[in-house]
């Protein structure tokens, strides 16, 4: 069943239009990758879906209900959490406080406690550093905190904006496998927005964005083919 459905989304900043009719879907429990280079409109898509940016036209549906032009707060309550680009640390707050803010929309104290235990179990280093200010963590630790913090809201869908940003390949791989694990064990659907082809390893479905339009999409085994093609396309023009 379709969890998130984006139809013909157009959006931009002021008079500068960036998206020209983007359509994509994320099913329940699926991992979907939205690939594209810098400036292709990946982040703009996420910002419009979450309501940080107003859509010029087009629609966004969650569970078949329209949520176009919603606020990020309401979307979080509806089970959609974004892991912002650059990890979005609340730098002046401690690790524990960052996690607590992640659970802000959850009223059930028991549930919060359970989420916290789970996050600390998944990322022991966060427990170790819980009193440390988030701004002083290393890049990899910040990525864990960003993921853990999103999980605190017990989401059904996570929107992950460039998890690989500024991470080494080893750390990028770690980040991706964490995302895959979250998806597998908790059944959380994930929309990964990436320029790194490795993201396709975990994707059930993928889209390629170029100049604000979806220029390619693939599902199931075709995703592997797409990964191959993206690599060759890259090498083909570069050499």
């Amino acid at each position: 069943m379709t969890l998130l459905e984006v139809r013909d989304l157009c959006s931009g900043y002021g008079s500068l239009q960036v998206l020209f009719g983007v359509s994509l879907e994320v099913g329940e429990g699926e991992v979907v990758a939205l690939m594209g280079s810098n400036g292709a409109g990946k982040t703009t898509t996420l910002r419009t879906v979450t309501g940080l940016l107003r859509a010029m036209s087009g629609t966004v549906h969650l569970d078949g209900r329209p949520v176009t032009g919603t606020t990020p707060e309401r979307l979080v309550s509806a089970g959609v959490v974004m892991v912002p680009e650059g990890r979005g640390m609340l730098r002046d707050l401690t690790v524990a406080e960052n996690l607590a803010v992640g659970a802000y929309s959850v009223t059930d104290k028991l549930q919060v406690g359970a989420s916290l235990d789970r996050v600390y179990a998944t990322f022991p280093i966060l427990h170790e550093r819980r009193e440390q200010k988030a701004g002083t963590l290393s890049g990899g630790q910040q990525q864990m905190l960003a993921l853990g913090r999103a999980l605190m809201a017990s989401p059904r869908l996570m929107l992950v904006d460039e998890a690989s940003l500024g991470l080494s390949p080893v750390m990028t791989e770690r980040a991706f496998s964490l995302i895959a694990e979250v998806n597998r064990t908790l059944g959380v659907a994930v929309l990964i927005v990436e320029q790194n082809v490795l993201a396709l390893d975990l994707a059930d479905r993928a889209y390629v964005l170029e100049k604000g339009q979806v220029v390619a999409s693939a599902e199931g085994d075709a995703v592997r083919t797409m990964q191959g093609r993206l690599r060759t396309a890259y090498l083909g023009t570069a050499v």
Partner: protein
Amino acid sequence: MSRRDLPSRVSGLALITVVLLAPAFMNVPQTAIVTSASCVALVALGLDVLVGSTGQLSLAHAALFGVGCFSALGLGTHGAPWLLAFAGAAAMTSLTAVVVGLPALRIRGLQVAIASLAFQQFAQQIPNKWDQVKFVGKTFDPPSYLAGVTSQYYLGVALVVGVLLVLAGLRRTRGGRSLLAVRDVEQRAVAFGVATGRTKLFAYAVSGAITGLGGALFALQQTSVSDTQPFILRESLLLVAIVVVGGARSPIGILIAAFATKAVPGLLAPQFGSGIQLLIPVILAGVLVLSVVLQPEGIGGVLRGLRDELGAVTERPVPRPLATDPVLAAARARSLREVPRPLTQRLPVPALLVASQVSVRYGGVVALADVDLEVRRNEIVGLIGANGAGKSTLFNAVSGLAPTTGSITYRGRELLTAPAAGRSARGVARTFQDMGLVRAETVRENVLLAQGWMAQYPAVTGMLALGAAVSTERELRHRADQALELFGLEHLADERLGDLPYGTMRIVEIAAAVASGPDLLMLDEASAGLTPEEAHALGDRFRALRDELGLTLVVIEHHVPLIADTCDYCYCLESGALIAEGTPAQVTAQPRVVESFLGRGTLEPVG
């Protein structure tokens, strides 16, 4: 052109007539009211140098007005001739303003305003102590030719006109451009060779001098001051209101707002009763609230809108660069290489830029780790890597905008130990990923800003249009136009930068960087915002800059084909570390590079 000018010429002429003949139609108290309003107008114009042009908020200008007034009185009552009293008042106020502005050297924005507030609170108390001792019974007797209200009126007009001219001079020359750079791109202004701290203090000094003149005129008019109401906190806030409602950097708007606030209530009082004197400021404050929310450009913005409306007969030029042959254009622009740089800094050296063990850290995040690289003269060097790999950070390290350790030498001399503002003079120019120019200014002014280090005249002489400033400015303007021609932008020279499409702004930024006469040109994602055709054409331009102008380029690029066919050498960064170097073909063939950096290839739609 002339049709556009006609309405403004007619209205200008009408305005001059009204101003010159006005005293004939006003009685003595009315004339005096208008003159004291011009004192306030002068102070407001002085305040605008800070608020409008430099982006520094002062809440102490009423107190500075007082400093000017009492300085002039102090000198005048002790027998100094009026000219000396005026000059002394300007100097004293200027000095005081600089002291009040000192914290601006260390901090930006809001807290500077608080320091000025503390000064206001302090200074407004002083006259209470002094009054009886120093000024009672003494008067500032002007010479007979300045004793009458009419002659004082004309002196006021002359001062306002003089200040307007000086401000126009400031705007057109080095000083004014530095102020704007500090206002809009503060941290990046050093890339244009603008020393931020000194520029701010210069703004305080100019602002203070103009304010001091307003105070001196007030002293002359009042001959002795019994009432300190004009110098209290409320008036400081009102002055800010006048500037904001009038419109930042819009002298005419500010004059209108000043006279509406300070002259109109007094002139209308006889007809409408004194209630109006309290009502008009309330209305002004209400308008101020609305204006901040709805019309940030104030009366000046409204006037500009009207003028554009009236002048809409002329057609807007095509907002994109004109197609020019890159090689021919570059060959024609060879004189851009003639820059006033000592011979020792022009000698050919094999390695122009050498970075060794360069690291940059922000908090716990390592943005750049022990990077070694070399840029050879007259080459195009590509810098590739995924988002966040540290490419722009490397540029920031070279231009002095990041906390850097290690060593970066340029022409064999260490850069890191020298002040950042000196780098453009040494021949290092750059563009920013998200545009480091002043959007509110014209294309030409932005190019002139980038050429700042070549304007080696004191900012004050530029303001007063003295000496070498005039000829230097003329040459720099010529040079700027040449640089614009090089990129097919000459038809856009007078357009406001912010009105242009993003891609064109980026080209303007490159033109500005080239105009600054660099040997090393660092371009951060020059192809962003361009159409694929334009991006492709960029490669030819890069080569023309290298071959015809002899520049050395370092380009950060995501557009891989561009790297592949223009770069002589290429470095790849990943998580702040260098992972590959060599020719573009060698680098892009390495599996590690492929893993870490997926550029935009020519994708064919799948399935």
